[in-house]
């Protein structure tokens, strides 16, 4: 059996971000998913993990430099969406997730575009992958997920975990 320390090197330099606020109910789902991934696999060469990322806009751009691939796990609210459903897309067909929209300086797409125009070495659109979990509540203070999202966690977390492993190029444990 492969142990975390024997996990093979992944092919391109990758940054994995868990986006959200740990104290705003379901907003923390991305943080929890990435934390669980990190706990399961430990350190993996060529993969940097920032499980708790609560910033956006130009601040986010600062983080991306010198990475070839970016994977973001965030929350999303869509019209009629069912909590626990999740979506995967790339920056080529970017939709605004909860924490990638930033009205203070620049939203994620603008920040990426700015970085590219500046000649920064940042992940290409096709190498910017976003996983977004449909949530119910992100305006009530709590360090727990809402009941429905918690109940569904085992299912969607495992699905996303396997998808992440496949994308990153490592074997699920």
């Amino acid at each position, binding site marked *: 059996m492969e142990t975390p320390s024997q996990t093979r090197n992944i092919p391109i330099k990758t940054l994995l971000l868990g986006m959200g*606020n*740990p*104290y705003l109910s379901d907003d923390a789902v991305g943080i929890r998913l990435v934390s669980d991934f990190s706990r399961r696999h430990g350190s993996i060469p060529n993969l940097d993990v920032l499980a*708790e990322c*609560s*910033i*956006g*806009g*130009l*601040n986010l*751009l*600062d*983080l991306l*430099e010198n990475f070839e691939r970016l994977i973001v796990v965030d929350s999303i609210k869509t019209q009629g969406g069912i909590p626990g459903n999740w979506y995967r897309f790339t920056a080529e067909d970017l939709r605004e997730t909860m924490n990638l929209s930033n*009205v*203070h*300086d*620049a939203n994620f797409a*603008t920040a990426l*575009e*700015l*970085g590219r*125009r*500046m*000649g*920064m070495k940042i992940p290409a659109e096709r190498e910017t992958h976003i996983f977004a979990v449909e949530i119910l509540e992100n*305006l*009530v*203070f709590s360090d727990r997920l809402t009941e429905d999202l918690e109940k569904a966690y085992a299912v969607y977390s495992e699905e996303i975990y396997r998808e992440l492993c496949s994308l990153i190029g490592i074997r699920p444990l």
Partner: protein
Amino acid sequence: MTKTISIDPITRLEGHGKIEIFLDDEGGVKDCFFQIPELRGFERFVVGRPIEELPRITTRICGVCPASHHMASAKAVDGCFGNEVAPVAHKLRDMYYHAHYIHSHIAHFYALAAPDFVCGPDADPATRNILGVVAKVGLEIGGSVIKARAMAQRIQQILGGRFTHLVWCLPGGVCKGLSKDELETIKPMVRELSGFADFSIKLFHDVVLANPAYVDIILNGPYTLDVHNMGLVDENNAPNFYHGQVRVVDFTGREICKYKPEDYAQYVAEHVEEWSYLKFPYLRKRGWKGFVEGLDSGIYCATPLARLNVADRMATPRAQEAFEEMFQTLGGKPCKALMANHWARLVEMLQNVEMLERYCADPEITSDKFRVVPKGITGEGVGIVEAMRGTLTHHYTCDKNGICKSANLIVGTTNNNAPIQMVTKKVAQALIKPGKEPTQGILNMVEMAFRCFDPCYSCATHSLPGQMPLDISIFDNDKLRWHFKR
């Protein structure tokens, strides 16, 4: 028939906000309101937690100025433990905070304010953003902006151990000092930032001051208010962002009061309006007289311009030169032209870089005596710093075991809530004319009124029990009614 114009969501503003402009039968502006539908509740959330955890928790109030909350919280917690703090810790915190200011002021000036001036207030909204700015001023300048922000970020990371949401300050000091090697890494970045601060002042001259139309907007436009000014000052009445006393000066330049952080409740009170979650602070001794200007009004601004208005001088020489030039150009001090806030940020940034230079040359800065372990719990503390968006107050009480019993926060933007309401209405009344459909440019110029304040509503809204209601506004012909429901 009454018509309502809504601008929702507001662009380039942290947190969700909504302006509603109510027109009368003739099409003139009858009234104008800001609606803040977001809820924050940290004041309740932190009760029952160990008091020393609060500087780590309150950084989560906001992703824009987490360090401001960390610093104000740390100072309030210092107070709860008797206020004995290692001197070098104060220096390190202040040094960090100057880097944080630079980081924030660059973002505001180049990403939020500059689009209005560089691209023009009536430019297509799709291009009136930082990409439009870069397209106009050139890639090289855009690259300098990105690089300067990254350096300011890196300095924060070196000092505080992480790039955001600090876990650095402890009661009595900080958990990590600055090594000599780290200091040597910081020094060249400070030199570059110093040049960038000079460059930004020059750019303001070239782009804004060289354009008579923009100077006219600043000096003669409707973006002025006869309200008072608030800011933290040192013993020489120079701006101090981390430490000092709060000074309030009226719009004629006369000092109204100067108080220590622990006395804030004697000087500041908060008014509540049923249609907003955000309170309206005012000077307690003047009383709440409504949204009115004038010497008798209790309303004040706490902004970069207000900080310079309350100051007798800057703390550093190059900033002093820029300070003198700014007020000379604007017709004297204090200045009521709110658009000058954008200029004031750049003057502050000069002081920030010069203070970083001073700390880099301070032999004590790498001392390993960066924390004093507290000897006891006194149970109450008030921390005040200048957040980039205004005077930030954290007031905590705790029991004999150090468990938080109460917390009160007056957040930077909250101080400016009433002035924002007032100037937005004033600008709308000046620009929206009967019988003419407002253009995008006009609506943007209304937004420019609040952008002077760089408001950040994600942390300014406060506690309410229960859940966040959804917002609905209802208007009838004669009377505006606001309803909030889940």
